[in-house]
């Protein structure tokens, strides 16, 4: 059953139209990857879903409800959270405070406490760093913190924008492993990546976004073997 259903979504900045009517779907329990080149509109897609970039046309159905015109803060409390590109952690708040900010929309202190423990379970390094300022973490740790922070709102769907950006391959593997674990625990994931091979290996399904339009969608394994995808995005 569809958790997220996007129909003919259009969005842009000023005179520039970035998304020219894209449709996509994420089912419960799924990992879906959107791959594409620079400027294709991947980040804009996630920002529009989160309510930060205004919708110009089309509709977004989430968990059976229309969230097309909802402001960002209401979308988060409906269960759709984003870990934005470039991590965007709060560098001068401690790791623990960063996590608490992620739970801002909630008011069940015991539940939040339990979820902080859960975040430490997924990313043990964060527990060691709990009292440290977020900005003193390494790039990989910051990415872990950004994901853990997004999880603190107990999302049904997690949007991840370029989680591999600027990280060493070993760290990327580790982070993707946790994403898989999260998914097994029931969180659906919509992933935007330039690292197409890694993303498609992780995902169940994939979409290719080219200059604001979806040009291909298929099962991830099929896409990995598709000659066009191979030529354009996998460098083979």
């Amino acid at each position, binding site marked *: 059953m569809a958790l997220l259903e996007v129909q003919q979504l259009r969005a842009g900045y000023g005179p520039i139209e970035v998304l020219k009517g894209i449709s996509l779907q994420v089912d419960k329990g799924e990992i879906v990857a959107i791959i594409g080149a620079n400027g294709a509109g991947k980040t804009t897609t996630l920002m529009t879903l989160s309510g930060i970039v205004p919708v110009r046309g089309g509709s977004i159905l989430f968990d059976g409800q229309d969230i097309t015109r909802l402001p*960002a803060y209401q979308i988060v409390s409906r269960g759709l959270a984003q870990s934005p590109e470039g991590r965007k952690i709060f560098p*001068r708040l401690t790791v623990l405070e960063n996590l608490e900010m992620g739970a801002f929309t909630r008011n069940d202190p015991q539940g939040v406490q339990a979820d902080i423990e859960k975040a430490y379970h997924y990313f043990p390094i964060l527990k060691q760093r709990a009292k440290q300022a977020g900005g003193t973490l390494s790039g990989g740790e910051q990415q872990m913190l950004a994901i853990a922070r997004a999880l603190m709102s107990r999302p049904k769907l997690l949007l991840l924008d370029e989680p591999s950006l600027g990280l060493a391959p070993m760290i990327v593997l580790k982070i993707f492993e946790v994403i898989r674990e999260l998914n097994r625990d029931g969180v659906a994931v919509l992933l935007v990546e330039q690292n197409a091979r890694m993303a498609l290996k992780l995902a169940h399904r994939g979409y290719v976004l080219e200059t604001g339009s979806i040009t291909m969608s298929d099962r991830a394994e099929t896409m990995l073997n598709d000659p066009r995808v191979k030529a354009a995005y996998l460098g083979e």
Partner: protein
Amino acid sequence: MRNAKLPISWEMLAVAAALLYPLVPAVDDFLFRLTHWRFGFVMPTIFILAILALALNVVVGYAGLLHLGIAGFFGIGAYVTGILTVPAYPFGCSFWLAVLASTLVATAFGIVLSAPLLRLRGDYFALVTLGFGLAVMYSIRNLEEITAGTKSLNPVPPPELLPPFGQLFEAVGWGTDWASEYRLFYYLTLAFLLGTILLLRNLERSSLGRAWVALREDELAATCMGLNAARLKLAAFALSAALAGMAGSLYAIKLGSTADPLAYDFNRSVTMLCCLILGGLGNRNGVLLGVALILGYDNLLAPILDDVQRALGEQSGWKKIVLYPFTLLMSTKGKLMMFGLVLILMMRYRPEGLLPSSRVREEMHEGDPAPHTLPRKE
């Protein structure tokens, strides 16, 4: 983290000193003999302006928005109290009612002004607050039918002493006349200041306080966390307006008049901002230190040096040659120059202020072992 307990004890020490000062008349008498100024009469004004500085700190220090019109809310508070209490108007409200009404009216102005303000960022936000402050000042000056213009509304009556206090003060041998017994205003304004400090201290530790910090750090990320940026800014602005209005009300009551409209001009806003910057933006204790230094200098030290300088002017000999230029620079005549010099030096060597909050310090020194974040991709 050496001696992590120290700041708390300093805090307590300062509070204790402020509470005990009037109980030891010898201190005030000694300062009077030394300077011919009654410190106890000036302190309440400084306490009131400290509330104003803390009010400004909510918007500038916590939420990170440049606010150049705090004096406008201060003026609104003063004039609401004036209208509600002076004999020229039929209201004749009591002290408590006047303070409450001033606070509420200033809050209402803050909320109304927020509507256009919250759509603006950075410089534009600052410009609108600047315009608002000036608009209030010119309105007060020119709406003579309501505000009596430059003649000001007066007399604003002093508060009635609540029964237990009146008897208490008589029992310990203090006067109950507000004009001659400085301790009355001293403790009244100190109580309001301590109340404000407690309120803000709790707020800083609440989720609202943390949300303001997050908003200042990264608005986009904060929005992704489900923070309602507009509502948070509105809360900061309204709280700041409320406290400034309350301070304005106390100011009018302390002076016994709403003062010349120029008391609420741009200068006032900027002076308050300087207190914040000198002391340490975002840090409550830093702000109070800034107030003590700048306003203590402005209201006490400079006038005292004026007297010294006048006395020296009539003398001759080495004392005059050595001390005269120094006192001239430090007195009211030279104070703006000193003030400018100190600010320039501060900005160059210690932009985070004397007692910075740890977070602001990291923002100000980019070269230091600082937060390492990924450069933006674009």
